[in-house]
């Protein structure tokens, strides 16, 4: 066990930061999340990142990566998340959509999608949640009925991020009505311009993020768009998403916000208060712990370990860190945090959604209880 970065890793982080400062617009490097600020500019930024070999460094060479260590990708994720995630929705492409295609795609699917993902050219969305299938994802009702060399998809996905800009949807649908739900789901890589796909914005109180309703009405999808065997999509998705528990390094941005709010507290003469110092230090420790737990998961995943309970612990730690920073920030600025578009307003709303995206906090606790503490199965 040791906690040092190699010289190459330190140098890479510095180089990447300089690149971010140069290529991400000033107004987008701010710590206040905006209304999907990057969907339009993410292509431009990701192409530049790809040209440097930094979009998918951890992928195998044959698919456009450079077989770099998982640490290089961890550093990339942290730096970009802390800079407001200028990859936009493309963080999903490189974190798990691409890797899922590498693991389970046909040669044609790999040829069609991986090159474009690796060069930063394409936006995706994920069609997972439904009104009655959120945490209990396998309860989904969206159905893909085989019809010759096509499937006909009917159903509705909801709370979908990035859908209005996406070119493809990584869609989960049932392909049989009876039987074990976990063995009834198939994956489809669906072009969003397929007739019958309708996208509507679902208004929310979040301000910092837009979600959509995706309706599929007799959408004819070629069978060649199905990824993996029929009814065998679930294990592929579960494995791909296990990286995603710690795939969004919220702690990196939260630390930046914390540092800024400490400055604000000091500017206002508030930071001599021992209670605030303790809150700030505890929040800082929580961010650091989330960082270390995430590293631990990344290391064991990179050594080929399956989805272990450490990933769920890491994710709970990430959510807690984000909430602690928000709590401290609100405590420092008080009613000013109610002002729209302010730093702390953004942090508060960010913390509100932290426990949902990527699997709900409570689901992580269930899994920790069962897999880490080995408590008896729930009643």
């Amino acid at each position, binding site marked *: 066990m*040791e906690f040092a970065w190699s010289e190459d890793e330190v140098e890479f982080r510095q180089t990447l930061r300089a690149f971010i400062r140069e290529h991400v617009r000033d107004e987008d490097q701010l710590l206040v999340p905006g209304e999907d600020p990057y969907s339009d500019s993410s292509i431009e930024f990701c192409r530049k990142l790809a040209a440097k070999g930094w979009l998918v460094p951890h992928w195998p060479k044959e698919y456009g990566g450079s077989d770099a260590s998982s640490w290089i990708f961890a550093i990339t994720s942290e730096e970009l998340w802390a800079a407001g995630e200028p990859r936009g929705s493309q963080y999903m492409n490189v974190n798990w959509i691409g890797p899922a295609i590498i693991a389970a795609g046909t040669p044609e699917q790999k040829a069609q999608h991986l090159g474009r993902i690796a060069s930063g050219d394409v936006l995706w969305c994920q069609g997972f949640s439904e009104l009655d299938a959120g945490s209990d994802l396998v309860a989904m009702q969206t159905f893909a009925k085989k019809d010759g060399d096509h499937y006909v998809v009917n159903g509705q996905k909801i709370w979908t991020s990035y859908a209005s800009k996406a070119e493809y949807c990584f869609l989960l649908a049932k392909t049989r009505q009876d039987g074990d739900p976990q063995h009834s789901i198939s994956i489809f890589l669906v072009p969003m311009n397929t007739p019958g796909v309708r996208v509507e914005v679902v208004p929310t109180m979040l301000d910092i993020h837009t979600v959509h309703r995706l309706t599929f009405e007799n959408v004819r999808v070629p069978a060649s768009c199905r990824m993996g065997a029929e009814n065998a999509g679930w294990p592929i998705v579960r494995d791909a998403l296990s990286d995603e528990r710690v795939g969004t390094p919220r702690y990196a941005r939260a630390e930046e916000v914390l540092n800024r709010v400490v*400055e604000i507290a000091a500017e*206002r003469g508030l930071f001599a208060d021992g209670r605030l110092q303790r809150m700030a*230090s505890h929040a800082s420790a929580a961010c650091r712990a989330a960082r270390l737990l995430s590293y631990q998961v990344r290391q064991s995943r990179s050594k080929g370990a399956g989805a272990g309970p450490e990933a769920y612990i890491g994710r709970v730690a990430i959510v807690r860190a984000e909430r602690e920073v928000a709590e401290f920030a609100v405590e420092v600025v008080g009613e000013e945090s109610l002002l729209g578009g302010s730093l702390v307003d953004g942090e508060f709303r960010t913390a509100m959604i932290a426990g949902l995206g990527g699997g709900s906090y409570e689901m992580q606790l269930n899994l920790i209880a069962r897999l880490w503490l080995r408590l008896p199965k729930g009643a």
Partner: protein
Amino acid sequence: MDFTLNERQLQLRSLIRGILAQQERPDKAGAPVFDAALMAALRSKGLYRKRAPGDDLLDAAMITEEVSQANRLAPVGLQLFLCAALFDQIPQEPIAIQYEGSRVPLRYAASASTLVILGDVEANAYRVDPAKAELAPSNYVYPLAYPAPASGKPIGTWPVAVVRRRWQLALAAEIVGAMSAALAQVVSYLSDRKQFGKRIGSFQAVQHRLAELAVSVECARLLVHEAAWRDDDALAASAACYAATAARQVCLDAHQLSGARGFTLEFKLYLSTLRLQALSLEGRGATQHGACAANEHWSVAMTQLLGCEAGNQSIQGGRTRRSEPSSHSPS
């Protein structure tokens, strides 16, 4: 960056676990004392060697954690973190440590012939006569006493920061061990005990509380390991702040979830939980550790900005820029 134990660390862990398994816990009635036999066994196996330059303190953290997790009253934390680095000869007896001007009961003071006192700038060690310590009436497992007043010339003097961070590391590592012990015992009990025809540990309300505790324990553990490895002022204070806060949570929740059985002496949960309460308060507790961490972590911001006119900057529309890279790059 590597989170797996190397060969040497694995050997160390199995050595210490072997020693703990061989040595029966002295379970005597009466006033608690420290476990001299265990200390002697650790010493005879060479675990008290003085560290060479470049050695990290992860070993010290691992040994302290393991001993604490076994609910053993051996004052190894301070011995390993403080003595090994600061004294030429590691004293055989426990060491007592306190901030200057405090009159608080200290762990092991009735057996300690060394008293370390932390001032604003320096920390000084004094020889004291343990026979002159005043026993403190207390039932928090550890033997507590008011030390005899320090007098005469110090036998050692060091910058306060180094002593404070070693103390905080020792405390935090001991807390991690005690939290692990408490959590393991409660999980084991609730996995068996049935109420309403079901094992208590199968109820989701209970599972979530235990899972929350588990996350706190694992967070504290990694914070301590990194802080020990780096031997860094800010990280040590930060780890101690986190651990001392978690200690209180684990103490109260472990008892709440164990019900009346948890309070009985035969159940022995108190061996870890009451220690946690004591450890959470030592060295002025999480508030002091947090203040130290804030001072270390944000000292530049504080010294630059504290002189500014208060409240002269509004964050209305407060779109602020990222701080400079150095602020969150690993040291």
